[in-house]
C-alpha cells in the first residue's frame, strides 16, 4: 500500500514531468539542441527518473534512467522533489550539466514555463496557449489515471480490473490536437495522445470549446453547470462519466497537494 | 320517474321471451352457463329495453350507451338480446357453440354486432368500461357506460384496480352492476372465497353502493335513476339475484353455473318459466 507522498512522486515523475516535451516543443526551447536531459529522485525503493533524448530539437521521452545524461537534475530527498513540483519550494535539486549551458538553460526555462502554466488559476489569454494548457492537462490526467492503475491504487485498480476492453476519450470541439484517451482492459491501461479513431470510444468527455475545457481543468467551473449549458457533453452513460471525473480529481488532488 | 305498471308488465313480458330464448339456446348448444344467464337477464332487459340509449339500426352508433358484460361467460344470455334487437339473425342462435359459428360461450366483439368488448377472461370488463367512460369525457360525449360483473368475478384483483380508479376519478358516467347470485363454479361464493361485507367494499372504494332485488324491475330502475343523478360518486348497483331464476330445478343451485339441457329438461324448464312468468305478472298486476 503506497502512501500519498509516493503516489504524488510517481505522478510527478510519469504524468507531469513528461509534459516538458510538449512545452519545450511549443516554445522552441530545445530547438537545435542535442543531448540527454534527465530528472531523477531518491525514492524509498531506490532511484527513479526519466530522461529526454534530444536530437537537433526532436524530443524522445524515455521513462527510465540514462547511464550518462548531459544534464541531470537529481532530488536527493523525496520530500524536496514533491515540494518542488507542488510549487512549495524554489530550491533547486542537485544539478549536473554546466558543461552544456544551452541545454541546461533550456531545461530550466521549460521547467519554469511548466510551473507557470500548470499553477495558473485563470485561463491564459491567447488561443495557442489555451490549446497547450488543455493538451497538457489532458495528457497529464490520462497518464495519471493509467499510472495510478499500474501502481495498484485501490479504487483505480478495482475499476480497471473489472473493465472489458474500453476506451475513455477527452476532446475539444475544433481542436483535435488537444485530444487524449485512455484504453482499459482487464486490469491493463494505456494512456494515448490524439483521437481514438478505430471505433467510437466507449465514453467521451467532449468540451464545446477551449474555454469550457479550461473551466473544468482549472476547476473554475463545475461539471453540472457545464453539462446543463451543453458546454460539456458526456457521450456514454453518466455513471461511467462520473467515475472518470472522480479519477481526474484524484490525480489532481495528488499533484496539487 | 317511476315505471308505470304497463311498462313493468311489458318488461316482464320481454324478459320472459328472453328467458325462453336462453333455455332454447342452451338446449341447441347442448349445454351452457344457464344459471348466470338467468340471474342477470332481468337487469339486462331493463337496461336494453328502457334505460339504454341505443340505435336498433346501428349497433356501432358512436353516441350509443355502452354495455360491457364483464361476466363474459353469460354470453348465452346476452346473445338473446342481440337476436331480439336484430343485431344478429335469430336463426344464428341455433348455431351457438357449433364449429364455424360466430357465436360461442364468450362473445367476440370483432364478430358479433352489438358486443362492445370481448370479455371472458374475468376481471377485465370494468377496466375496459372505464376506458370507454374516460373516452366519453375526453371527446365531450354524453353516453353512459354500464358494466355488469359477476360476484365471483370480484375475486379478481383487476376488478379492484378498476374500482379504485373509478372511485378515485369520480367517473360518474360509468355505472357498475354486480350480478350477486351468491354462487360460482365450485360452490357458493361465501364457501369458496368470502365476499361479504360486499357492499361495504364498494363503498370503501369510493362508490355510492346500493343493493337491490335483482329481479325487481322497478327497484333496479330506481337504483339506475339514482346512479345517473349522482355527480359526486360513481355508483355500484349490487343486484341480489338467484342463479338460474325461473327454472325451478336450477334456481339457487351453484351446480347450474354450467349445465346440460336435453329435450326433457328443456320441456321442464319451459314449464317452470311459464309458471314463473305468470306469477310475476300477477304480482305486478296486483301491486
Amino acid at each position, binding site marked *: 500500500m503506497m502512501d500519498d507522498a509516493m503516489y504524488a512522486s510517481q505522478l510527478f515523475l510519469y504524468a507531469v514531468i513528461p509534459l516538458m516535451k510538449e512545452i519545450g516543443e511549443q516554445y522552441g526551447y530545445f530547438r537545435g539542441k542535442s543531448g540527454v536531459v534527465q530528472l531523477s529522485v531518491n525514492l524509498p525503493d531506490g532511484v527513479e527518473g526519466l530522461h529526454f533524448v534530444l536530437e537537433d530539437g526532436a524530443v524522445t521521452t524515455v521513462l527510465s534512467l540514462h547511464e550518462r545524461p548531459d544534464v541531470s537534475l537529481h532530488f536527493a530527498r523525496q520530500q524536496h522533489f514533491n515540494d518542488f513540483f507542488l510549487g512549495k519550494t524554489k530550491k533547486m535539486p542537485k544539478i549536473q550539466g554546466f558543461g552544456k549551458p544551452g541545454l541546461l538553460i533550456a531545461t530550466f526555462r521549460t521547467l519554469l514555463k511548466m510551473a507557470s502554466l500548470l499553477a495558473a488559476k485563470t485561463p491564459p489569454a491567447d488561443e495557442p496557449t489555451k490549446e497547450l494548457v488543455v493538451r497538457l492537462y489532458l495528457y497529464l490526467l490520462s497518464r495519471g489515471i493509467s499510472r495510478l492503475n499500474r501502481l495498484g491504487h485501490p479504487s483505480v485498480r478495482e475499476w480497471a480490473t473489472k473493465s472489458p476492453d474500453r476506451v475513455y476519450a477527452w476532446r475539444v470541439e475544433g481542436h483535435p490536437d488537444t485530444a487524449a484517451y485512455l484504453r482499459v482492459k482487464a486490469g491493463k491501461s494505456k494512456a494515448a495522445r490524439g483521437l481514438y479513431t478505430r471505433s467510437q470510444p466507449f465514453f467521451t468527455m467532449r468540451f464545446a470549446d477551449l474555454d469550457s475545457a479550461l473551466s473544468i481543468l482549472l476547476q473554475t467551473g463545475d461539471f453540472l453547470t457545464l453539462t446543463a449549458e451543453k458546454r460539456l457533453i458526456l457521450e456514454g452513460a*453518466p455513471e461511467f462519466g462520473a467515475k472518470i471525473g472522480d479519477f481526474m480529481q484524484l490525480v489532481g488532488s495528488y499533484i496539487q497537494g | 320517474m317511476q315505471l308505470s305498471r304497463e311498462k313493468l308488465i311489458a318488461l316482464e313480458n320481454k324478459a320472459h321471451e328472453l328467458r325462453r330464448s336462453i333455455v332454447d339456446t342452451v338446449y341447441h348448444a347442448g349445454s351452457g352457463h344457464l344459471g348466470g344467464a338467468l340471474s342477470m337477464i332481468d337487469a339486462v332487459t331493463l337496461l336494453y329495453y328502457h334505460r339504454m340509449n341505443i340505435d336498433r339500426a346501428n349497433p356501432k352508433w358512436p353516441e350509443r350507451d355502452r354495455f360491457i358484460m364483464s361476466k363474459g361467460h353469460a354470453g348465452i344470455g346476452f346473445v338473446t338480446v342481440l337476436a331480439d334487437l336484430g343485431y344478429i339473425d335469430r336463426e344464428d342462435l341455433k348455431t351457438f357453440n357449433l364449429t364455424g359459428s360466430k357465436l360461442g360461450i364468450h362473445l367476440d*366483439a370483432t364478430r358479433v354486432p352489438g358486443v362492445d*368488448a370481448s370479455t371472458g377472461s374475468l376481471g377485465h370488463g370494468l377496466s375496459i368500461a372505464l376506458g370507454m367512460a*374516460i373516452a366519453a369525457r375526453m371527446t365531450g360525449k354524453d353516453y353512459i357506460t354500464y358494466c355488469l360483473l359477476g360476484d365471483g368475478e370480484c375475486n379478481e384483483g383487476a376488478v379492484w384496480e378498476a374500482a379504485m380508479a373509478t372511485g378515485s376519478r369520480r367517473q360518474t358516467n360509468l355505472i357498475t352492476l354486480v350480478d350477486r347470485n351468491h354462487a360460482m363454479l365450485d360452490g357458493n361464493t361465501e364457501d369458496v372465497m368470502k365476499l361479504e361485507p360486499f357492499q361495504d367494499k364498494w363503498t370503501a372504494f369510493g362508490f355510492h353502493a346500493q343493493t337491490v332485488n335483482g329481479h325487481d324491475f322497478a327497484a333496479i330502475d330506481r337504483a339506475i335513476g339514482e346512479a345517473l343523478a349522482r355527480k359526486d360518486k360513481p355508483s355500484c348497483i349490487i343486484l341480489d339475484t338467484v342463479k338460474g331464476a325461473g327454472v325451478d330445478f336450477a334456481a339457487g343451485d351453484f351446480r347450474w353455473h354450467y349445465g346440460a339441457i336435453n329435450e326433457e329438461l328443456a320441456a321442464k324448464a319451459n314449464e317452470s318459466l311459464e309458471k314463473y312468468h305468470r306469477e310475476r305478472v300477477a304480482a305486478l298486476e296486483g301491486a
Partner: protein
Amino acid sequence: MGIAYTSLDTTKLSTAEVYAHTLCEIAQEDPRIVTLTADLAKSTKIGVFQEKFPERFVNLGIAEQNMFGIAAGMAACGLIPFTCTFAIFNSCRALDQVHTDICYQNLNVKMIASHAGTSFGQAGSTHHATEDIAIMRTMANLVVLVPADGQEAAAAVRAAIEHQGPVYIRINRGFDQVVYPQGIEDFQIGKANLLKDGSDLCFIVCGSAVFSALQAARELEAEGIKARVLDMHSIKPLDKETIRKAVHDTRRIITAEDHTVVGGLGGAVAEVIAESGMGCAFRRLGIQDTFSPIGYHEDLMSIHGIDTNGLITAAREALKMDFEEDDDWADEV
C-alpha cells in the same frame, strides 16, 4: 415506484424524450392521441406529454392490468391510446389484458414498453425485460418494434400511429448511444434498415445491440473484414426477404439482442433460416437463458456478450480468426 436520476442525467435526457416530444407534435394535430401510464410518467418520459395535454393524459397509479384494459376501452371508442410502462410489466404482469383485450380485439392501442432488456440494470431481474420480444411476437395481430435509439423510437411512434391495430414499441431507459443522429427518413414497419453493407458476415440486431454492431463492424473493417449490419427494428412483421438475402450473400449470420436467446430476434431469424433451406453459420448472441445479475447496463451488455467486444469476438469466431492487438500497454509519452 419512481426512478432517481443523478443530476447529470437530467441534462442529458434527449434520447428518451425524443419519442415523447414526437408524440406531442403529432397530438397537436390529431386529437385522438391520448396517453396513459401506471405511475411511471417521469420514468417513461410521457410526463412531457402530460404537461402539454393534461386533459388527454391518464395516470392509473400502480395498476398495469387496469391501464391496459382502459386503453382497450378507449381504443374501442375511436381514440389512439399510448400506454407507457416498463416492458416487464407490459409483457408479463398485464399480458392477459394485452392478449385478450387488445390483441384479440385488434384494438388500436400503442404500447410504449420502456426500460427493456437489462437497461435498468441496477434494478435487478424484477425490472429486467428479457423475455418480452419472445412473448409479444407470439401475439397475433400485434406489431412488435424494437428501435435502436431515440430518433428511431420517434419514427416508430409515427409509423405506429399510421398503422391500424395494436403496436408494441420496446425502448430502453433513455441513455442509448445514438445510431441515427439525423433521424430516419424512411422507417417502415416490416423493413429492416441496412446500416452497413458487407459480405463476410451479417449482424442482424435490434435495440441496444445495433450500436454495438456498428462499432464492431467498424473495427472489423480495419482488419479487412466487411460485416453487414441490419437494424431489424421490426420483429413482427419480420423482414424475411432481407434475412434470406443476407443468408445467401454472407453465409454467416450473427444475431444480437438485449433479450434471451430463446425465442426473441434470434429465434425469429432462426425460423427464417431453417425454412429457407439454405445453409449458413449461425450464432445467437444475447442472454443465455439465465436471469441477469445486477449492474450498469453497459457492464451487463458486456457480461452477456452483446457489447461491441462481444460482437467482434463472435464475428472472429465465425470467421475462425484470432487477433492479438494487446502487446503494447505502455503509456504514450
